[in-house]
Structure formats: structure tokens, C-alpha cells
């Protein structure tokens, strides 16, 4: 039965966390984590510990994305090693605390896996975010989740990029999974969106349980959308937005945008078209939180990723 080369045996995944409230106004994750903190039966699996955790409680209480700065951008060495001071930003303080509980990032002591639950105002459906294209375990998990959710779609966004990758909260773990479900307004919880998020977690945990039980996962490939470039809104000299996402692009996350297609529309009715040379697949189209990040959408291209056969090393050890 063992077709996996011994090199592809991976350590079992025993310590798992589910983060909600990294952005305090993305309420599906906030409500699910609060629920699981009260009653965790749904997320427990054999052979592993699953810890639900509210990462930014003050932002949750305020129902704001963050208090001082975006928690999901400060898990870099510089912030994590910053000397604690009186006027330290709240989210930097939180990041260090999270790193001490679930990390330290990059160390053997770090948690094996973190799911981080997010919502978007964009029509991205049930999206999984992959940070490292060489992470066979996570690619295998995404392959499993995509199959389990089919025929519903479950796009994978790959943020492995030299400039555009950001230092996420979940990156303290050995394997990190971003869960991004939309469309849902910030500060609102929709039953349908919450349910979609819940399904992803169910299948993700099922996968880990199977993996830990010794099941071998043969080589697989998945289609992912690889981040290419951010696109800002057209702005005037004062930095004010002067044109909005065109109605033909609105809600069309993951759909092909071809050269010449409309992208923005201004208040005088002028249309700005996509003037690239090749087809891209926009996503995070008109995300509320990204106006301040000067991002109207991101361009992605489709790429196929292949993961090697994986199997937990646990059986050989026992």
C-alpha cells in the first residue's frame, strides 16, 4: 500500500489552531470562533488538538478591522522582535503575544497548522489562500477540500510573491491556511457565508485527521490563481478616487479580464479599460478594506501546482 517514497513522509499534524477576528469586523469567523470556544465538539478530531482563538479581541469589540494597524501585516521579524514600549501599537503587541502562544514563527515549537478565518466584501466565494507553493501538505489539503466541496467552486489564491506577500497572522504556524469567504459586508454576518466557511473548516480538519491516521495521499495537482499585481483606483493629484469599479467587473472575481475590457467608470460616464497584453483573473474586486491600501483589485494568472505524494510518518514510528 505504501507508494510514497520515504522522503515524502511528513510529521503528523497534532497542534492545530483556528483563528477568528484577525480583522474584528469580519464576522463569520468571529462568530464561529466564539461559538467553538463555548462548544468545541464540532472541531475536535482524533489524534489532534484544535484550539479556536480570537486573535484581535479589541478590534472585535469595536467591530473594526483593527485598532492601530492591520494585525494581518505585522508578523515579520521586525515587528515580532520589536522591544515592548508604552506606545507600542496594539496589534504589534498582540502579534508578539500570538507568536509566543502559537509560534515562535519558524521554530520547531510552532503550531503545526493554523486556519485563519476572513471575510471579504468581494464576490470571491469560498476561497483558500496559499502562502507557499512548495508546501505539499497544504496543497494536498486544498486538493481534498476542493473535491469535497465540488461541484461548488473553491478557488485557491497563491500569494507567494516577492513583493506582494504579506506577513500574515497564520504564518506563525508550520502550515498556514487563509480562508476568505464572501461577499459579506463588514460588520454583518450572513448565514450562507458563515455556513460556507464552516464547511471549509470541516473538510480541512477531516483531511488532517485522515493524514494523521496514516492515509497516503497520492500526487495531485490543483489550479491556483497566482497573485501578479495590485491595481489602484484612478486618483486625482489630491489622492481622491475619481473612478469606481465598472459594473461589468463588479462581482466578477476569478473571471477572465481581457485586454480592452472595462475596468473603471467615472462620474462623467468615462470608461477606463484594461490595457494589459494578456488575460488576467481579477480578485478582491472592490474589497472595502483595500480602499486605504490603494487597491481596487488584484490581478492573478492561472497556474497549475503539483504536490508530491504525502503520508504521515507516524506509522513507521509506532
Amino acid at each position, binding site marked *: 500500500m505504501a507508494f510514497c517514497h520515504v522522503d515524502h513522509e511528513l510529521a503528523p499534524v497534532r497542534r492545530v489552531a483556528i483563528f477568528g477576528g484577525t480583522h474584528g469586523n469580519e464576522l463569520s469567523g468571529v462568530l*464561529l470562533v466564539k*461559538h467553538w470556544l463555548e462548544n468545541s465538539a464540532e472541531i475536535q478530531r482524533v489524534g489532534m488538538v484544535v484550539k479556536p482563538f480570537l486573535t484581535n479581541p479589541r478590534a472585535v469589540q469595536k467591530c473594526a478591522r483593527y485598532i492601530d494597524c492591520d494585525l494581518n501585516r505585522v508578523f515579520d521579524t521586525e515587528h515580532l522582535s520589536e522591544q515592548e514600549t508604552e506606545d507600542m501599537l496594539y496589534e504589534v503587541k498582540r502579534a508578539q503575544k500570538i507568536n509566543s502562544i502559537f509560534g515562535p514563527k519558524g521554530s520547531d515549537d510552532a503550531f503545526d497548522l493554523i486556519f485563519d478565518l476572513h471575510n471579504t466584501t468581494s464576490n470571491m466565494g469560498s476561497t483558500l489562500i496559499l502562502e507557499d507553493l512548495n508546501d505539499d501538505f497544504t496543497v494536498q489539503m486544498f486538493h481534498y477540500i476542493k473535491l469535497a466541496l465540488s461541484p461548488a467552486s473553491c478557488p485557491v489564491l497563491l500569494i507567494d510573491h516577492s513583493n506582494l506577500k504579506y506577513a500574515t497572522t497564520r504564518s506563525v504556524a508550520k502550515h498556514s491556511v487563509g480562508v476568505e469567504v464572501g461577499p459579506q*459586508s*463588514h460588520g*454583518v454576518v450572513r*448565514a450562507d457565508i458563515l455556513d460556507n466557511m464552516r464547511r471549509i473548516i470541516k473538510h480541512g480538519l477531516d483531511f488532517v485527521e485522515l493524514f494523521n491516521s496514516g492515509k497516503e495521499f497520492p500526487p495531485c495537482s490543483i489550479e491556483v490563481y497566482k497573485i501578479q499585481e495590485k491595481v489602484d483606483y484612478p486618483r486625482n493629484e489630491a489622492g481622491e478616487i475619481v473612478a469606481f469599479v465598472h459594473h461589468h467587473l463588479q462581482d466578477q472575481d476569478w473571471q477572465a479580464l481581457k485586454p480592452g475590457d472595462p475596468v473603471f*467608470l467615472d462620474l462623467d460616464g468615462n470608461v477606463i479599460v484594461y490595457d494589459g497584453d494578456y488575460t488576467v483573473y481579477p480578485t478582491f474586486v*472592490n474589497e*472595502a478594506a483595500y*480602499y486605504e491600501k490603494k487597491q481596487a483589485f488584484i490581478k492573478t494568472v492561472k497556474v497549475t501546482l503539483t504536490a508530491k505524494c504525502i503520508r504521515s510518518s507516524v506509522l513507521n514510528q509506532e
Partner: protein
Amino acid sequence: MVTLRRPLMLICLAGTEQVDQTLFLIMFKPLKRVVVTGDTHGNEMSGVYLAKHWLKNPSELQRETFSATPFLGNPRATEKIVRYVDQDLNRSFKTEILTSSSEGDELYEIKRAKEINQLYGPKGSTQTYDFMIDMHNTTSNMGACLIVDSTENHLIMHMANYVQKNYTLAKTPIYLYKLGDEESYAIDSICKYGLALEVGPQPQGVVRADALKHMRGLVNSVLDFIDLFNKGTAFPAFEIEAYKLLAREDYPRSSDGEIMAIIHPHLQDKDFDPLNPGDPMFQTLDGKDIIYEGDTPVYPTFINEGAYYEKKIAFAKMEKLTFSIPAIQAQTE
């Protein structure tokens, strides 16, 4: 406002419920001083961007008989892209607040309310502007909703009727917000007449091209109506359906105020559809349904509005009624 009775014998019937409204013609003064505000809530972006646009280029607000003036109600909230800075501006226009004397330690929105009241009011005085359009967005699926205080406001009911007939790219239900004798706290209550436009669904902090188009269409349609009215056009009596606020429903909460159940998927996005006794309203995270136990159908609106979690409103319960509105005409000199 002057009431002209055509058949004199109807005098004795005035004030009773059987009055045949079609026999009346109500005269109003023309609406010459008109203002449009777009950012009463700083994160409802259709109005924010339209008002900013019109401040730079007001030609779209000009008609033969008047020009509407755009203004920004809450610039600090707009800059921060939040609903408000200190308190909800659109709950700050009660006479008591507007005439309070406490200076210095005032909340930003109270200060703004007083300034706006000086510019376009003062509320209840003879100097107020004639009419205010107040542009809002909602995260609820309310279409292009027209918010009127009550159907006793015949002029605004005609305006709403005109908009319904002339702006047909979205549903344009009429929401009657006046509950009992409560004084209005809304910004448009400082002018003689007011109309709030509530377009959704649109997330806070986001501009959707479709919502913006509807908002713009509504404003233009309102201005067209005012122009026709000012020119002396007679608007005949009519019957119209509208939704009147009955009560507000909160989320089920725990003793410490935490929300225990969320809007049921069957109710989500069903603004202005009937909610019948026995229909599910909420769902707990354990999958239990909480049903509507009233005796008669209600028509929920503002279902799952983002800004109303803190106001403890999961949705507003409305009744659907038909009203008979008498004819109106402008009193021209």
C-alpha cells in the same frame, strides 16, 4: 399649505375617516430652496461620492425653476470612512439637541447638527430651506427605497409616486418611518420637507456602480418632479402602497448582550417580502431555527443592516398599507 374644498358640502366631513381624498386639491408653495446631502453617514459611499462630484460640478442639480445645493453633512466621518465620529448624526436633529446650550465639550455630530441647522433650518422656523434630499446606503437588500416620514406629507407622497413611475430600473418601495408622535431626529427634518433615499445592498465603505447609478437616478427623478411641480403642474389624486414601521426586532441575545442567533438564510435579502407566522427569522449556530410567532404577516426591512447591530435592530417590521393621496398643485403667484 392651503386646503381648497371643491364641493363645499364636504367641509363637514373633513377630519373624519370617510373623507374622499379625490375631492380635495391641496396647494403648496413651490420648492425653491433645495439641498442635497450625501454623507450624513460617512461610510455610505454612493451619496458621499455624488455629493463630492456635485460640489465640483453642480450642473446636474440645476432645473429651470431652481438649483439644488449639494453639501457634505459629516466631513470628518467621511474622511475616516466611518458612520460617525462621536454619535449618529442622523439621530441628532431633535429640537432639544439643536437648542441645547452646552458649548465646548460637545460631541462632533452635535456641533455639526447645530451648524447644519443654522445653514438650512432652523428647524420649525419660517426661514428653513424648502426641501432636503438625504442620500443613504444600506447593507440590506432594500433596492432604491424612498423614506418618508408619513403619508400625511402629501407633497412628498406625490414625489415618491412620481419617482416610482419614472425611475423603473430598481424597486422603489416607500418606507414610512414615523412611529407615533415621536419628533423626527433625522437631518431632513430641519427643512420644510425632506426625503431620504436608501439604496442597497452595498457594503459600508464600498462604492458599487449599480447602487450609485440608482442613487443618481432617484435624485434626478426627484429634481424633475420638483421642477414640474414648481411650474404649476397639477398632480391628480391617486392610491399608493407603502410600508409603515410597526416595531423593531432585535437579535436574540445572551444575558451579557452577545448575539445568540443570526438572520435566518430564508429571511436574508427578503426585504419587503411578507414574513408569515411560523416563518423562520433567526438561526443559532447550533442550527436551531427561531420562528416568527406574530398573528399577522409583517414585511421586514433593514434586514441585517450593518449599522444596526449596535442599535439592537435585526430588522424593522413593517405593515403594508394602501393610502389615498389627494391632488396637489403649486400655489403660483
